[in-house]
């Protein structure tokens, strides 16, 4: 039997942390995402960027907004279903208050042999169409060579004062 080859490949957590440093990120506000567990572990081992854990993604967006108002460069780390749970503050804070809000969003449970839009899991295949509907810019991170999208997403968010989403296709390693 021929095995389907993966569409999305794992990106090393250390490489993501390096990219966060290059973008001068000061705080990572997270609601723990299984998909990004190695990234969270890597962040917990360093002290340059403060890792803040929130109970909900709505809170995470609000904390990130306060950090930005206070002059910091925060980023969020959440799960795809958490993004759906946080649509109220995505609209009320990131969009209506025009707060740069860049989010690393993990596709937990994705079948990596298929594009996200063709996944059987409803919450995964509906993420990109949902972001399209809301007009939120997104940047797929499907393999290690895609890592520069993180800088692009962050820059997009700060330059346009809008939310942006980095969609992490495979679990970080």
């Amino acid at each position, binding site marked *: 039997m021929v095995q389907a080859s993966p569409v999305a490949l794992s990106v090393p957590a250390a490489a993501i942390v390096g990219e966060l440093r290059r973008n001068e990120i000061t705080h990572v506000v997270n609601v723990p995402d299984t998909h990004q567990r190695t990234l969270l572990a890597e962040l917990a081992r360093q002290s340059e960027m403060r890792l803040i854990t*929130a109970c909900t993604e709505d809170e995470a967006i609000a*904390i990130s907004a*306060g950090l*930005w108002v206070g*002059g910091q460069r925060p980023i969020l780390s959440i799960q795809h279903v958490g993004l759906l749970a946080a649509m109220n*503050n995505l609209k009320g804070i990131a969009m*209506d208050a025009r707060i740069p809000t860049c989010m690393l969003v993990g596709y937990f449970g994705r079948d990596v042999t298929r594009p996200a839009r063709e996944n059987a899991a409803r919450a995964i295949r509906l993420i990109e169409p949902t972001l399209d509907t809301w007009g939120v810019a997104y940047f797929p991170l499907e393999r290690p060579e895609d890592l520069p999208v993180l800088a692009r997403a962050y820059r997009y968010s700060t330059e346009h004062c809008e939310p942006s989403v980095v969609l992490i296709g495979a679990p970080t390693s």
Partner: protein
Amino acid sequence: MWRRDAIAALVAERGDAITITTEQAIGAWRAAVPEALNEIPHHLDIVGCMGSASTIGLGIALAQPTRAIIVVDADGSLLMQLGSLVTIAGAAPANLHHFVFENGVYETSGSQPLPAEGRFDLAQMARAAGYAHAMQFSDAAAFAAALPDVLRQRGPVFVSVRTEPEDGYLVRSSAGTRLDVQMHALRERLAAR
């Protein structure tokens, strides 16, 4: 106590704190401060993201650790994001004072009672969540007298302020100033200091 009396005490003692109000406290705060409408420096009126005043305050507190942050929240709002008590306690901002005005109703939408009103205790919840201090006041004179000491305590501090239900008004975006304008202006002011 009446909301206006508690707000007057807070305005008198705010010093150079960054202040954040939400819901029904917005109008009372604006009525109490001497500054003209839309010209209150270092202040935010939070609308459009109910329950987020305290976590926006948390972010500012972490970003500006040398500035005092006063959040004037409401019971219905806090209940929208009750887990934020634990989030705030976890981040442990020493410069955050979280006042929650408790009138027991959703005043803006017509004063419907909160679920289980009279049977829960937000100050005890905050204490159990891990706030450094938590207390409750129901008398205006006692609140005003205690406020200077309360504001000197190391945060996060939670203060339940029991107020009488009043005739609410429809909270609009910052009584005239859009949230985006306020937040961008505050960022610029803080950067300029």
